[in-house]
C-alpha cells in the first residue's frame, strides 16, 4: 500500500479514537517471551496469571479439564500453572488478553472463528519454526497469533463496511484480503501494520502482519513473513480458516515463501509435508480447547 494512503488511514484511525489499546499484561508477557523457555521465571508467570481473576479462573478450569488427566484437582493458580506447563499458560494469557482488545459488542468477525484461526496459525508457526531450526520459535508463535489483528481495527473503524466485506468474501468464496481491496480499498494487513506500530511491536512482527498475504518479494519481510504466510495457508486448508470453503489448490513446495525458506534453512528439505499436514489436525483439538476455555470465562 502507498505511504500516503497508509498515512491517511492512520490519521483516520487516530482521529476517531478507535485504536484498540494494548492489553495491560501484554508487555510483561512479551518480555517473558524474549528469553528461552527454561529461563522464564515461573513465579513471574504465576504473578501475571493472578493479576487477572478471570484468567486465573480459566487456568484452574483448564488444568482440571479432562485433557490433563490430573489425579487430584488443581485448586491454586500455582498448581494450575505447573500442571498446564509454560506454553499453554502463555497461550491462554495471550488469547485471553487479546480477546478483550475490543469490546464484546464491537466484534464483526465471529470471535470463535477468529481466535481458532489466530491460535492455529500461532501453533503451526511455532512448530514449523522448530522443524526448520528457525532461531526464535516463540517470536514465530507471536507473529502467528497477531497476524490478523488488523481485523479488530477494521471492526472498530469501519464496522458496517467490514461486515459487508466478510459477507462478500464468504459468498464469493474469495480470500478476505481480495474482498477488502475491492470494497474498502485497504486490507486488515494495512490496519494491522498501523496497530503494530502503535503498540511498538518488533519490526519483523509488524512486517509479518503487513505482508502475510503479499509475499511478492520474500527478502523484504524475511523468514518470519514466509512462516506466517505458509502457516496461514496451511490452517486455511485444514479446517482452521475463516469459516467458509475456499475452492483452491495450493502447491506448497512451489509457493514463493516455501522456496525462500528452502534457500535459508537446510532443514526445509527434510520436512515430510504429508505427515506435517496430517499432524495439523492435532492442533484443531488443542485450539478448540483453548478457545472454549477463553470463551467460557
Amino acid at each position, binding site marked *: 500500500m502507498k505511504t500516503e494512503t497508509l498515512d491517511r488511514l492512520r490519521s483516520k484511525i487516530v482521529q476517531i479514537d478507535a485504536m484498540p489499546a494494548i492489553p495491560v499484561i501484554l508487555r510483561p508477557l512479551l518480555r517473558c517471551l524474549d528469553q528461552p523457555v527454561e529461563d522464564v521465571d515461573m513465579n513471574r508467570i504465576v504473578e501475571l496469571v493472578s493479576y487477572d481473576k478471570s484468567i486465573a479462573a480459566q487456568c484452574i478450569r483448564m488444568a482440571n479439564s*479432562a485433557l490433563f*488427566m490430573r489425579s487430584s484437582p488443581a485448586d491454586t493458580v500455582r498448581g494450575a500453572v505447573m500442571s498446564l506447563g509454560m506454553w499453554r499458560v502463555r497461550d491462554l494469557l495471550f488469547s485471553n488478553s487479546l480477546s478483550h482488545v475490543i469490546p464484546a459488542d464491537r466484534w464483526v468477525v465471529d470471535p470463535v472463528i477468529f481466535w481458532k484461526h489466530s491460535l492455529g496459525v500461532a501453533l503451526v508457526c511455532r512448530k514449523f519454526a522448530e522443524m526448520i531450526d528457525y532461531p526464535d520459535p516463540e517470536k514465530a508463535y507471536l507473529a502467528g497469533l497477531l497476524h490478523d489483528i488488523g481485523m479488530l481495527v477494521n471492526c472498530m473503524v469501519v464496522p458496517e463496511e467490514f461486515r459487508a466485506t466478510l459477507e462478500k468474501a464468504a459468498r464469493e468464496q474469495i*480470500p478476505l*484480503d*481480495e474482498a477488502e481491496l475491492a470494497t474498502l480499498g485497504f486490507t486488515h494487513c494495512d490496519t494491522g501494520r498501523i496497530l503494530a506500530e502503535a503498540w511498538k511491536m518488533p519490526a519483523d512482527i509488524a512486517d509479518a502482519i503487513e505482508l502475510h*498475504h*503479499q*509475499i*511478492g518479494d520474500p527478502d523484504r519481510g524475511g523468514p518470519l513473513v514466509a512462516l506466517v504466510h505458509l502457516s496461514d*495457508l*496451511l490452517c*486455511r*486448508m*485444514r*479446517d482452521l*480458516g475463516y469459516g467458509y*470453503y*475456499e*475452492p*483452491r*489448490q*495450493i*502447491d*506448497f*513446495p*512451489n*509457493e*514463493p*515463501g516455501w522456496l525462500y525458506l528452502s534457500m535459508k534453512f537446510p532443514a526445509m528439505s527434510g520436512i*515430510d*509435508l*504429508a*505427515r506435517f*499436514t*496430517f*499432524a*495439523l*489436525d*492435532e492442533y*484443531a*483439538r488443542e485450539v478448540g480447547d483453548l478457545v472454549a476455555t477463553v470463551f467460557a470465562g
Partner: protein
Amino acid sequence: MANESTLIHDEAATPESLADPAWIRIRDLIYQVSGIYQAENKFYLLVGRATRRMKVVGARTPREYLDCLTSRPNRDAEMRNLLNEITIGETCLFRSMPQIEALRRVIIPAVAEAKKKLSFTKLRFWSAGCSTGEESYTLAMLLMEETQGALKGWTFDVVATDLNDRSVAKAQEGVYNDYAVRNVPPEFMRKYFQKVGTEYRVTDDVKSHITFSRLNMLDDSKMLFMRGLDVIFCCNVLIYFDGKSKARTVQHFFNALLPNGYFFLGHSESLYGISEKFHLVHFPGATAYWKPAEGAAKAGTR
C-alpha cells in the same frame, strides 16, 4: 482388499492406555511402512483397533505388541493384520466429503477447462482397487451430476478394477445396505438408487458408465495399457505393498495420468518417500498428488 461395510465396535480406549509412549512408536512404524498417519486426535481409533490384535496375539502391553511388529518372525504378517484392522470399514459411498468437494469445486472445473482448450470433451476416471464398488459409483454419480450441469455435452467413463474376483462381482451388482449409503446426499439417493427390500440398488444409468474388471496392479504388462486418465483413486491398497512394488505401481499411475491429472489416496494415507514426480497439493481438508503439465506456471497464492 475388500472391506466389509459393517458397523465397527471399537475397543474402548481409556486415557491411561492412550498415554503409553509405545503407541507413538507403533503409530510412527505404521507410517513408515504404509504411509498411513493417525493424528493424536484419532489415536483412540488406532489404540482401539490395535488392542483387538493384541488380544489375538496375546500381547499384554503396547510395548510387547510393538515387539510383535518389529522383531518376531511373523512381523510382516502381523503388520498386514493390523493394517487390515485400521482400514476396516473405510469403504462406503461418499466416504470423504473434502475429497469430493475438491473434485467438484476445483479439480473437475480445472481439468475440464484445460481439456476444452484442446477440444476434448470427455473425462476418464479410474478407481484402482475398487473393492466392492462404493468409490466407483460415487465417482460416476458425481460425474453424472457434472455432465448434466456445468459440463453439459461432455461424456465420461469410470474404470474400476480390483484384484479380487468376488469383490468385482459384488461391485457389479451395485447393491448396498443402509450403512454403506449413510453419507449419500438425499438428492443422490433419489436420483441414483432404487430401494430393493431393505437394500439399495444403483440405477442402470449409473452402471452404464462404469467398466468393472479384475486387474493385478503388480502385473506390469496390464498396467502399461492403462492410459489417458484424468483422475485416479487408489485408497488403502498401496499400504500392503513393499517399497519397491509401491514405487513401481505409483510410476504406472503417473504414466497413466494425462498432464494436469490427479492421484488420490485414502484420506489419512500418503506416498511416504516416493512422490518425487508428483506434487503433493492441498485442498480444503484434502490432499492429492498432481501431475503438472509440462512448463506449468508456478504461480504463488495468497
